[in-house]
């Protein structure tokens, strides 16, 4: 016969083991989620290296619904597509700072830019760029126009631009701005001027 006080001690020990086990599992899950989030929010490609280049970026300002040209400095890599990505990232850097003139979702980034025949650019964004984008005609179009205008201002040969999200075609950015069509930079230039 096991003495009663021993029974109580064993029961308490078992309960303590169960509670601490449950606590450890929760801590592990939390840490995993945190590291996953850090991974998603972190850069998806190494920063471009090379000579410093002064470029002009068109930045959207939600407060007064305007697009304004600003100066930025990027490292100019030799590859055209990496340079294009660096140019676009300079725009996103404006939006991802705090306070932001035009907030985007965390983890919004340019994964890659594919150059076709020198005149067409296909911009591949992270899923967070679209999923976390504020929904509305104006905020969505201002994002696209600022990216297209900045790209065509710094790489003059680009005539057409298309966006894909995580390598896949999407109908709209966040319910409004068209992501299916190829944008002609000349037409976008006229539209962007309405906001300047």
């Amino acid at each position, binding site marked *: 016969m096991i003495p009663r006080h021993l029974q109580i001690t064993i029961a308490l020990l078992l309960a303590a083991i169960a509670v601490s086990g449950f606590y450890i599992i929760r801590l592990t899950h939390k840490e995993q989620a945190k590291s996953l989030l850090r991974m998603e929010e972190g850069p998806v490609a190494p920063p471009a290296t090379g000579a410093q280049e002064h470029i002009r970026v068109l930045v959207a300002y939600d407060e007064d*619904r305007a697009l304004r040209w600003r100066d930025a400095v990027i490292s100019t890599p030799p590859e055209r597509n990496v340079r294009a990505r660096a140019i676009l990232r300079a725009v996103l850097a404006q939006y991802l700072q705090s306070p932001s003139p035009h907030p985007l979702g965390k983890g919004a980034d340019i994964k890659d830019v594919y150059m076709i025949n020198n005149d067409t650019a296909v911009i591949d964004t992270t899923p967070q760029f679209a999923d976390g984008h*504020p929904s509305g*005609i104006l*905020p969505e179009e201002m994002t696209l126009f600022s990216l297209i205008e900045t790209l065509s201002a710094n790489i003059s040969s680009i005539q057409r631009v298309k966006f894909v999200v995580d390598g896949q075609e999407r109908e709209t950015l966040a319910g*409004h701005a*068209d992501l299916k*069509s190829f*944008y002609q930079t000349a037409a976008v230039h006229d539209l962007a001027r309405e906001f300047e």
Partner: protein
Amino acid sequence: MRSMNTKSRALRAGLGAFLLVLCTLLVCLGDLERQVSVYAPQKNYQVEVQERQGQLYFSLLDLLQPLGSASIHANGNEWKLQFNNADAVFTEGSDKAKVRGRTIDLGGKTLSENGRVLVPLNASFALLSALLKTPVEVHPSARRIFIDNAGTRFTAELKKGERSSLLLSFDHPVSPQVTHDGNIVRLTFKREPVLSDITNQPLDDKSIHSLSFSEENGMASLTISGASALDASLGSDGRSITIQSPAPLVATAPSQPNPQPASPPAVENPQNAAPATTNEPRSSPAFLVMIDPAHGGDDSGARFSDSLTEKEITLALARRVKAELQERGIAARLLRDGDTTLGLEQRAEIVNQQHTAVYIALHAGTPGRGVRVYAPVLTSSATPAGGKFLPWDAAQAPALPRSKELAREIADQLEKKSLPVFSLGTPLRPLNNVNAPAIAVELATDLDHAQELMNQKFQTTVAAGIASAIVQHRAEMERP
């Protein structure tokens, strides 16, 4: 002498009884003049409306009790309504009510009379939508309320011949009151939720000239006019009505050769097409406005708060635009009249198939305040190659000048109503896939003021501005 007195007493009693009957009739007729018809899947019924403070009011419980379990309790000047699983609070003298925790603008003060709570008729749409959480369509001027897409539609088929006939086929049995007035026969639907997109449809026939649909005082009427008196006969299943000119009593003389030269065939123009001999309400009237409440179903659009999404705002506004257009005699349809998922290409396809005269996409979004009017801009690399066929992305190309004109007219009308208006160009889809004049109107707000977008007065002002501009646009299109 006694018999004279008896006669006079009898005459007076008779006169008194006649006056009593007359008064009762007048009271009944007066009541008939002030009613709202409610059509729901479970029941069709009428609710009395009364004029108070210059507008029409109805009893809250009279409206809700036929639709479910409704009870109301007073607590000081507050009235707490319990309707099925929803609750609402009305404050006497206040023009706001709280329904399911959301504040609703009633457009007039809540009144209480003899233990009854009276609310303005104009609030019926906002109130029923919030309480029922099902699609509600209100025709304010006709005082008709359709709940959960309740409605009886019909098709009309004209069979030409020596005795032409017009066959009206309804999707539910009907029992109209038939009245004849010279060459006109009128079918009045007092209890049936008969709906139609027709306002006045001329018919290309010698004996049956036109079919028109109207609704007023909680009732719908179909009026058919002809060259002579017309007969109306109801089918055995109650779903069809045949309108026909009476059979000739004598045989007609053999027809003589027509001395008039044959007229040249009409040139088909989609905007001013001659009415088809087979008229079906789902086919397009000559000038049809397609209103597209953007988003819906799985696609909520912009989310302004936990309880307010873009899809709800656009649908409410679309219904008001439709009502305003119909009041101005313009046929209008909604691309969705409920919480339905529709793709952008699907929307454009429907619009193009209906040979729409004008397409309006309605949106709501941040930032800013007021209204943004967007005209389409072709930014795609697809360019019309000339000829009959157009690339899908440039289907808008031929209509582009008229779209810009319409956008300008709408902006002008909204500005006249003292609304802040911003005109912009946009490559927004599906505008560029629509082959008719197409524009987008966006109600703009800051997140702190998003609830104002559901304000009935604001929406009605915007809807009236859009409708006035379309009336003007049609007049310009029809100008030779």
